[in-house]
């Protein structure tokens, strides 16, 4: 391995545009030489910004280095370039699994397995996630938005409102514990309309979400259904990339609850 690294390094030095950077970067990553791996990957990406394997390599390095948010972005980019890229499907699948999003994890891991059916480790991972998603025993349980949301905190942080901004479910309080759900709901209706208008007039299609990073929290507004909006507040130390994932999870619970109510 060391000889290979030496040889590939020499080859890359002689020809900086060589695609050998992919093998070199991966080898350095496996040896936990993260700084060197990052330099190689970033230099390669600069030359080949549309090469899916380059984004995949970079994502793997970022994931090993603990920068999951950026790793997600890089694998997401890889999939935009090649929707069937096995490495990216696997990577995003594992990230979703780590975030507790088992349904999305399974979806991506199964897609990866279709591309690489001989990957035994991947096949085992798929089985494991399938087991976790086995439906619970049937018993009457009232669906709760809060049950699927992050653990409760002293102030309430999740609010579901209708298109007119009237609260349907959940509560929202400010850091002093004052109930603000109705006021926020009223503002959310206008904000959502503004978001829809901006997306429409700028030819971006249907708006899907609004992520807001503040000095004291991160906020997220999503649409569980065309007639409802979900507003969630998270601590500022929750990475903003995870904010969207969590809000989507809560939105799915909200949809199930709304269906059950109907």
């Amino acid at each position, binding site marked *: 391995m060391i000889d290979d690294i030496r040889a590939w390094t020499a080859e890359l030095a002689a020809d900086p545009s060589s695609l050998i950077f992919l093998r070199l970067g991966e080898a350095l990553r496996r040896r936990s030489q993260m700084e060197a791996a990052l330099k190689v990957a970033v230099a390669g990406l600069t030359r080949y*910004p*549309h090469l899916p394997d380059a984004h995949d390599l970079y994502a793997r390095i970022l994931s090993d280095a603990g920068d999951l*948010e*950026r790793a*997600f*972005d*890089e694998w*997401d*980019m890889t999939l*935009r*370039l090649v929707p069937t890229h096995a490495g990216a499907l696997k990577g995003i699948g594992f990230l979703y699994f780590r975030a507790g999003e088992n349904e999305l994890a399974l979806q991506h891991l199964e897609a990866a397995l279709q591309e690489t059916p001989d990957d035994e480790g991947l096949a085992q991972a798929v089985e494991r996630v399938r087991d976790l998603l086995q439906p619970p025993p049937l018993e009457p349980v009232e669906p709760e938005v809060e049950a699927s949301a992050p653990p409760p905190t002293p102030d309430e942080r999740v609010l579901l409102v209708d298109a007119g901004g009237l609260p349907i479910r959940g509560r*929202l309080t*400010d*850091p*002093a514990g*004052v109930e*603000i759900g109705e*006021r*926020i709901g009223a*503002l*959310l209706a*206008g*904000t959502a309309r*503004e*978001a829809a*208008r*901006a*997306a429409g*007039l*700028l*030819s*971006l*299609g*249907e*708006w*899907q*979400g*609004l*992520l*807001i*990073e*503040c*000095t*004291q*929290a991160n*906020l997220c507004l999503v649409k569980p259904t065309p007639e409802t909006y979900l507003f969630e*507040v998270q601590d500022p130390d929750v990475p*903003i*990339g995870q904010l*969207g994932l969590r809000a989507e999870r809560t939105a799915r619970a909200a949809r199930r609850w709304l269906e059950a109510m109907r």
Partner: protein
Amino acid sequence: MSRTYLTLLDPLTRLVGARGAMIVSAEDGLVVAEFLMENVKGSALAALAASLANRVARVVETSGRGAPRFMQLQAKGGSVFVALAPADLILVLLTGPETAAGAARLEMLQAVERMG
């Protein structure tokens, strides 16, 4: 147009999928500086982004969670990123769906720091 502002906007336009970057007056939604692809209507982007930012600011203020500093409007066909800058300005970036949000956020927050 100020060379300084164009220098600030240049790195943003180099992001994969970027369609336009601008500095906008938050209060009146007018363009201060812009660097756009030819099919992007700057006045519309400026006015709509500023309006959305002002609405978000009211939500944040009511929620008692400090002040907004960055936001992303996600849509099927792309995103509008907004970072709040000094002197009642906002930094706006319009992108396609292929733009990495993490990279856009970092570049914009760095640009805001340079504006300070």
